């Protein structure tokens, strides 16, 4: 049974204050998910900061910012896929492939930085197109299709690199600027996330393509009957996912100074899904927002940074991450009012 079409912009405001007065209008305008996440970030930050004041240092805030960039890029684009009703768990492998290609092209082209970014980007778009084609024309569910390419693209990255880190970009001015530079006191890496997230936010909220993506995720039959070319939209979303994952891969190369075949596929895809789900994107499709995902990624970054800062056993980080995801999704499901009978939809 198809899901009802959700409002295309879950954080959009209703025009009038209504019975709840101005407070409720503000809550609706900001979005309940965003308010909850900001509250959670604030409480967590105060808790960690009260134990170790170094948490509030500007350098630590910048470190958290840098830490969440790769995860954030993948989570933002994962949100788009999830809103469409799909999932893409191959994004980390695409990032790894793009990273290693960036290192190899940089070395092979005697330090041509733009070519070393262009080719991985093209490869990422092709990987995304491949995922989309397999889903649409191979009639394989996105989970299975991208589970296969998670392994396939990772293997491809290992194959072209022979499993070794490739090239050295640590002495290149452009890569160094990306990895360690700042613009307006904000790390360049964070700017990349801000720009990509803003563009995707605009795409989802203010363009026809964005509205179509929400419609496909909410009720694909209704979307098709109302004239949306579903296949084209699905292909577009997977290509977008491949492209953004490639950008994440190029950033990995900049940060580590070499092309890393498996850095993106060391659980990064799961963090991307966690970020999207924690941000309130409904895994059944039709609901989600880039802004909430960014808050969710910041929450994860604060949590992981804080646990290391407080000297908590690293094994607890995995437990905390899982517990946070379950708590967020349970709250989301309970608030949806779904009957507690049988398997959840």
């Amino acid at each position: 049974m198809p899901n009802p079409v959700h409002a295309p912009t879950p954080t959009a405001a209703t025009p009038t204050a209504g019975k709840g007065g101005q407070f409720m209008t503000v809550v609706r305008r900001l979005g309940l998910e965003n308010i909850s996440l900001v509250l959670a970030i604030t409480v967590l930050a105060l808790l960690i900061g009260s134990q170790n004041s170094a948490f509030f240092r500007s350098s630590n805030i910048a470190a958290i910012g840098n830490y969440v960039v790769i995860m954030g890029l993948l989570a933002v684009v994962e949100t788009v896929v999830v809103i469409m009703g799909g999932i893409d768990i191959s994004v980390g492998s695409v990032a790894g492939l793009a990273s290693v290609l960036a290192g190899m092209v940089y070395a092979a082209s005697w330090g041509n930085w733009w070519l070393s970014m262009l080719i991985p980007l093209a490869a990422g778009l092709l990987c995304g197109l491949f995922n989309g084609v397999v889903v649409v024309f191979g009639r394989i569910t996105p989970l299975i299709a991208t589970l296969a390419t998670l392994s396939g693209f990772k293997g491809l990255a290992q194959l072209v690199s022979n499993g070794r880190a490739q090239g050295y970009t640590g002495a290149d001015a452009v890569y160094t600027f990306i990895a360690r530079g700042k613009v307006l006191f904000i790390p360049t890496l964070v700017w990349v996330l801000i720009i990509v997230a803003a563009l995707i936010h605009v795409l989802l909220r203010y363009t026809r393509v964005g509205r179509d993506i929400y419609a496909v995720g909410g009720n694909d039959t209704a979307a098709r009957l109302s004239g949306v070319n579903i296949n084209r939209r699905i292909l577009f979303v997977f290509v977008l996912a491949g492209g953004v994952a490639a950008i994440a891969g190029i950033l990995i190369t900049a940060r580590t100074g070499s092309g890393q075949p498996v850095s993106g596929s060391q659980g990064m895809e799961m963090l991307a899904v966690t970020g999207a789900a924690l941000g309130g994107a409904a895994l059944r499709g039709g609901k989600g927002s880039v802004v909430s995902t960014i808050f969710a990624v910041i929450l994860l970054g604060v949590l992981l940074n804080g646990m290391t800062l407080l000297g908590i056993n690293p094994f607890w980080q995995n437990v905390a991450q899982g517990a946070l995801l379950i708590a967020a999704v349970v709250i989301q499901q309970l608030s949806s009012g779904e009957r507690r009978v049988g398997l959840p939809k």
Partner: protein
Amino acid sequence: MRKHKLVAGVLMVPLAALMIGCSSGQESPATGGSGASDNTDGKDAAGPIEIAYLQKQGDQQYFVDEITGAKEAAAALGDVTITSADLGDDANKAVSEVEAAIARGVQGIIIVVPDQAVGPNVIKLATDAGIPIMASDDAISDDQGNAAPFTGFNGTDMGSKVGEKAAELYQAAGWAPADTRILASWKQDLTVCTDRVDGAIAKFTEIVGAGNTPEVIEVGTDNTPTNAQDKAAATLTANASVKHWIVWGCNDENTTGVTTALQNGGVAPGDIISVGLGAYLACKDWAAGQESGNKAALYISGIDVGKAAVNAMVAYLRDGVPLPPETIADTHMVDETNYEQSGVVCT
């Protein structure tokens, strides 16, 4: 004209702000920017000391032992805190954790890198922040090729000891080379692993002679017991006629995984000479009193390495004792008769 000036003025304001807040990322601050303490000369950490011990594959027993040793040394020294982070196999996470450690102002960083290629970047981050950095287990160098101070083992030397023990057991067994194969398993993109395996075959050949050295089958693994087991099972299928096996590899995970696969495949423990590296897994068969192909293992103590690294770092920070370029920890060959006396922690 006036209007143009006004527009130019308005445009200049954000441009100026942009210029003020810009950085190419290539600057090398003389002292610890980023809120970090400048400890490049040592001797300025009179009070409490925090050292970040960042490790690849932090869930492997050797590295768990290493952190235990580091914390024991810190407790003995007093006023020293060790914060650890598991980097897995993720070089990107290594950079993130170094940045986070610098940001919170740790006095020293000890790191086991997931990939030696990330060495130049992490060294640059630490030196720019004025924080001493030491490599543990896997050596790293900066972009000029200058090695960072190192604490750990000599890979080639460890391999030589394994090869020597395997040769001794092989000659004692009196097996014919034609009926025997050497199965060497390791993560082939890790230089430290390759050094160990190369050291083993070189020493083995030197002792028994090239003519008496059995054919070597090289198997690439991810250094986990399950992966080694899977790969060895397939190798056994392809070499069903082989009567005797000599096994070595990068670590105990490899050798115990291969030995289990051989035994599961019907090879008698008496037809296997497996010489491990670490002893923390090989000892399990010995502790259970079970007949096994795991005949011996080179005991490398993660605890000793963790202690040595922290002691050297604290001596540098408190007393200005220069970080030794290379601190090589002792290793001992153990078997079922002496592993307990040698201090092997068999959980």
